[in-house]
């Protein structure tokens, strides 16, 4: 009975960690030049549910976000918050768990209602190893116009974990 309980707990744990979600986002921010700018952005980002930690660097021009387990944050929501603070959200390096699917030789990953289309400039050695199903990967999400954000992104995968 005890073993069964442990198995159930481990199953739930492994299921939750494998859920489709963003794990980490290093968001490039353009136009942020001062301490109150960073303070305002940091505070705005912290108001979002589902974050474990936020760090903003003026010198790097980046917001470093670690997301909590079972979060339902989207990259669109993060970039919208950057825009609301008066800055421009550019490309982002993301770590994500998602469901990799192949549709007509085009790969994409679905995460929390967002679709990350795998771009063709992903290195061949990574592309050839992709398999449909659950995946955790790191990639660079390409910049989209701040005024035209949608739930579809292009991602250049740099590492499959």
């Amino acid at each position, binding site marked *: 009975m005890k073993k069964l309980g442990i198995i159930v707990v481990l199953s739930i744990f492994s299921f939750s960690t494998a859920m489709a979600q963003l794990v980490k986002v290093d968001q490039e921010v*353009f136009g942020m030049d001062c*301490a109150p700018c960073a303070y305002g952005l940091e505070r705005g980002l912290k108001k979002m549910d589902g974050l474990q930690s936020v760090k903003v660097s*003026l*010198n790097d021009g980046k917001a470093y976000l670690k997301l909590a387990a079972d979060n339902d944050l989207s990259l669109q929501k993060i970039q919208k918050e950057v825009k*609301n603070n008066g800055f421009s959200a550019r490309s982002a390096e993301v770590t994500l768990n998602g469901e990799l699917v192949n549709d007509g030789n085009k790969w994409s990953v679905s995460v929390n209602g967002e679709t990350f289309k795998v771009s063709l400039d992903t290195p061949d050695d990574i592309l050839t190893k992709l398999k449909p199903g659950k995946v955790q990967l790191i990639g660079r999400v390409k910049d989209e116009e701040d005024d035209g954000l949608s739930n579809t992104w292009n991602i250049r995968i740099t590492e499959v974990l």
Partner: protein
Amino acid sequence: MKQTVLIVIVAMMALSKTYAQGHGPLFGLQTPTLAEGGVDFNAVAMSLATEDDQSFMLRYIWSYGVTEDLQLNITTPTMINRLSDPPRTRGNSNMPANGDIEASVWYRFFSNAFGVGKRFESTAILSVSTPTEETRGGINVSNSIHGAISTGYASRTWYVWVGGGYQYYFEKDNDQLGDLPYASLVVGYRPNIFMGDYPKPDWRVFLESLAEFPGASMNEGQISPVDQRGKKVMIGPSFLGLYGAWGISFGALFPVYQDVVQGSQERYRLSMNISYWL
């Protein structure tokens, strides 16, 4: 000196109960607007010295960001010592130098963030003011409107803002204060020693310049016998320190050219601004 110390103490006391803003130059026009939903508060101590007298004023500004490009402001004064014949000036270009209550809208109509810490942006300002005194320099003083446009470049190292504005006073009881066109140019620099990353403190130094061209006033329906504009150019340094949600700036302007038609000559302007982003 005693009065100056008093002003600083009163300003600090005010800040212990409320909070304040001030992001760019102290005297010149600037461009930054608040984040959507952002609120900030500025408490300012200002003084203007002429050859005859010196004014002291505390001023408070509440600002609210409707969107990241649209900001509402309201500013109210506490006059400690009023000049009987004050120069017509904006004093601080983002607020009246005299005892006006002013409400303004800032609209950042252009913004281009093109690099880490770098952006070009342009902001338009429209304000309405109502005086807290009956007369100014013997002229009945009325409500006024003010408009300005400013454009600037900001980076982690260099800042430049250039702008111009115009204030128009309405007629009251056959009197009318002359209008006030003005322009400002500000260059800012942050030395390497203050390039520490957030949340370390962040200091900048500005060289500010302000040119004002006050028009002749009308008294009892008669325009001044000398119907020409005054000309004044003022230059001076200001310093801005930022730490987290707090900002403090202080500086002075000194006249380098004055051709005053009405009123007395200026000797200097002082200002200190404490800001808090709520």
